[in-house]
């Protein structure tokens, strides 16, 4: 009996210890299947720390990176990228942890808040403020070499800065545009080539999309314009429009909150007008990114937004599938020639293209990283964000190259793009939204929260015709006064 009890107790303890060990893996040792990015970071930092006194740049080190599927072929290149990095720096190991777009933020946030993030993570430059506020980013200013800095176009690199600090390298700078179906545009009598080069005003755009509407009795079989506004795309719609209405950033040059300007109200009125005209669906607030792309490919809309350069590639691939009678083509889709179009301008303001700069942001753990480890992280981040890797990724995305080394490497790669679209994107990039590293991270974080808690929910209500543009404007103004004070907002 006693033996049985001892045996049962031993078994119970073994089970409990196994569970606890699995939960609390501290990542000691560099091998094993459960070697997460966070653990590796700690290992790397620890190993550097241990050899701090006698280490040179040739010491062995592991750099961890958490990367999503940036482009279609990106994640399939990981093994090759790790191998090439090791060949370039034999003492260094680049360990890439793949993540999906859906869970990368959650994975990264968990690791950051546990104090053990990966050395490098691929995120949008607008996320820098959030992690900087946590003091979890690694400032590369004193570690980057002039050769590295000079390799980059100035504007995208500026997006990775906050104040005087540089917190990573950009991978690409994409412009947020609109996308049109060439056949439908021409049917509606729209001179798209002229629009690509000279832009259009809101009034011209409004009339153009009215012509794109096709009705069958009471039912609209084709809309003039459909923009994704549900889910994560909710904030994009307004953000893209207001940049062309004299509000390129949430704060003006005096760091006053800009979305209390009267121009903001005019844009809100315009948003409502396009739905009331019948040019956009009244269910717009529930149209997500997947739905509107489906509507575009199945001929249910003439113009869609937001449009990225890579959409031309997606449309071309679907066209090929239709041609080959491949069953994996989008159900009910028609051949579409994708045309890049600019976002209309408002109230006579200058066009300012909304841009997205994503890149390889560098993180630090709870312990101060050693200079050697920092230098190694810079090498890895630069390796990922320049040269052959950048060229392949950006070609895959149809995105413009932003490094000299990337341009050079891309020369030998084939790409099938509509030259008119290439010219249109270049034109849009010529008036890209300038970066604002002067906006303090706490102010930036407050603006993001206001956007999430007030602007996006009110926009949803505006799109659903539950509140008026004036109601929304007043709600945003009230929230802005609460967040930034009476003197912290634009009054015009």
């Amino acid at each position, binding site marked *: 009996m006693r033996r049985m*009890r001892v045996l049962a107790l031993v078994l119970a303890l073994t089970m409990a210890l196994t569970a606890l060990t699995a939960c609390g893996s501290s990542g000691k040792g560099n091998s094993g299947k459960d070697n997460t990015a966070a653990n590796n970071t700690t290992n790397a930092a620890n190993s550097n720390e241990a050899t701090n006194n006698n280490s040179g740049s040739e010491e062995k080190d592991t750099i961890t990176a958490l990367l999503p599927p940036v482009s279609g072929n990106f994640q399939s290149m990981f093994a090759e990228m790790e191998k090439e990095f090791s060949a370039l720096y034999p003492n260094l190991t680049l360990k890439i942890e793949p993540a999906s777009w859906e869970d990368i933020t959650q994975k990264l946030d968990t690791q950051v808040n546990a104090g053990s993030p990966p050395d490098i993570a691929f995120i949008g430059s607008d996320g820098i403020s959030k992690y900087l506020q946590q003091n*979890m980013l690694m400032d590369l200013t004193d570690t980057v070499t002039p050769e590295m800095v000079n390799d980059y176009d100035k504007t995208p690199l500026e997006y990775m800065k906050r104040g005087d600090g540089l917190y990573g390298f950009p991978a690409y700078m994409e412009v947020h545009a609109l996308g049109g179906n060439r056949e439908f545009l021409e049917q509606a009598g729209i001179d798209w080539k002229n629009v690509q080069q000279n832009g259009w005003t809101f009034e011209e755009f409004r009339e153009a999309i009215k012509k794109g509407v096709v009705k069958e009795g009471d*039912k609209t079989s084709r809309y003039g314009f459909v923009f994704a506004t549900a889910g994560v795309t909710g904030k994009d719609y307004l953000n893209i429009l207001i940049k062309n209405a004299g509000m390129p950033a949430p704060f003006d040059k005096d760091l006053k909150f800009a979305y209390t300007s009267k121009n903001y109200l005019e844009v809100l009125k315009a948003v409502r007008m396009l739905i009331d005209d019948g040019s956009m669906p009244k269910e717009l607030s529930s149209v997500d990114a997947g739905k509107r792309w489906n509507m575009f490919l199945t001929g249910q809309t003439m113009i869609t937004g937001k449009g990225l350069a890579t959409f031309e590639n997606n449309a071309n691939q679907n066209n090929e599938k239709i041609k080959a009678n491949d069953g994996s083509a989008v159900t009910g889709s028609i051949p579409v020639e994708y045309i890049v179009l600019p976002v209309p301008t408002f109230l006579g303001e200058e066009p300012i293209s909304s841009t997205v700069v994503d890149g390889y942001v560098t993180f630090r753990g709870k312990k101060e990283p050693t200079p050697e480890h920092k230098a190694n992280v810079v090498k890895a981040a630069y390796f990922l964000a320049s040269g052959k890797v950048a060229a392949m990724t950006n070609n895959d995305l149809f995105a413009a190259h932003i490094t000299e080394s990337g341009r050079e490497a891309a020369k030998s790669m084939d790409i099938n793009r509509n030259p008119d679209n290439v010219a249109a994107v270049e034109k849009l990039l010529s008036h890209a939204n300038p970066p604002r590293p002067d906006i303090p991270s706490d102010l930036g974080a407050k603006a993001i929260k206001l956007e*999430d*808690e007030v602007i996006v929910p009110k926009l*949803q209500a505006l799109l659903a015709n539950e509140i008026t543009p004036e109601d929304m404007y007043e709600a945003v103004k009230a929230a802005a006064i609460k967040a930034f004070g009476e003197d912290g907002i634009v009054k015009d």
Partner: protein
Amino acid sequence: MSQLAKVPSTTKVARKRKWRGDNGWGYAFIAVALVVFAMFTAYPVVSAFIISFQEYRPLGSVFIGFENYVNTFSDALFWKSIRNTIVYTVLTVPFTLFLSFAVAILILPLKKRTQTAFKAIYYLPAVASGVALSVVWLWIFDPMPSGILNKLLHVFGLSNMNWLGASSTAMFSLVLMAWLSSHGTSIIIYLAALLGIDESYYEAADLDGANFLKKLWYIVIPFLKPTTLFLLVTGVIGSFQVFQNAYLMTGGGPDNATTMVGLLIFNNAFKYFEFGKAAAQSLILAAIIASISFIQFKFFGKNIEY
């Protein structure tokens, strides 16, 4: 003197024996569960309590007193989320109980094999991933005329609805989802309780000439009172903690019409890294749930026969 000295020594020996005997083994066995409970339940709760008084930072938090609580109580969105959660709870829990009870009553007279088949059918959604179910429901609630629910409306000559995109229908859509997809566990619990009622009560009622409704009212409902109380309390607790549906289906919108308190806590913690505020809101939520559970036991727990 020597006798007095012997007394504690005997007690000590007895205690020692007791400890070495069954009591010791008992403590040894529950120690494992106790350690796991302390690490994964008690420690996080204590930790959340401490964090609720801090501005949390991975590299060193700052003590800020009651600021997180003050900010929470003055936050209109927090009160809106509480109101939304109450509305959701009031609309879902009683209906779910009623439906589960009704289905269990309908299944009860069937043959054992058929009963098992129905139990499996009703329990199936509980096994399926919530994310997968949400995707199916997003398809059902498609706002365009091609959406399944909208097609149904067209049959009756009604125009299509923006189910998840309009404040007037978004909450109802989430409630409808709860009404139609989460009864498996309750049905099985009700059925087990129904099978536990002794046949002699029904036989006696038959002899007295009681019809179905009388048997239901005088036998079934009183005997199922403990089960109903259990399902009511756990249902309310679960409903107050609801997060997944709002997160996946509406994201809390439109205009925060479906922002539940669970979603708000999640957003504060993992979207804005305001762990202190999120911890304070979690503790307030825990206090609300505890108060409601206490009231439920106080009012519905009377005359319950266990």
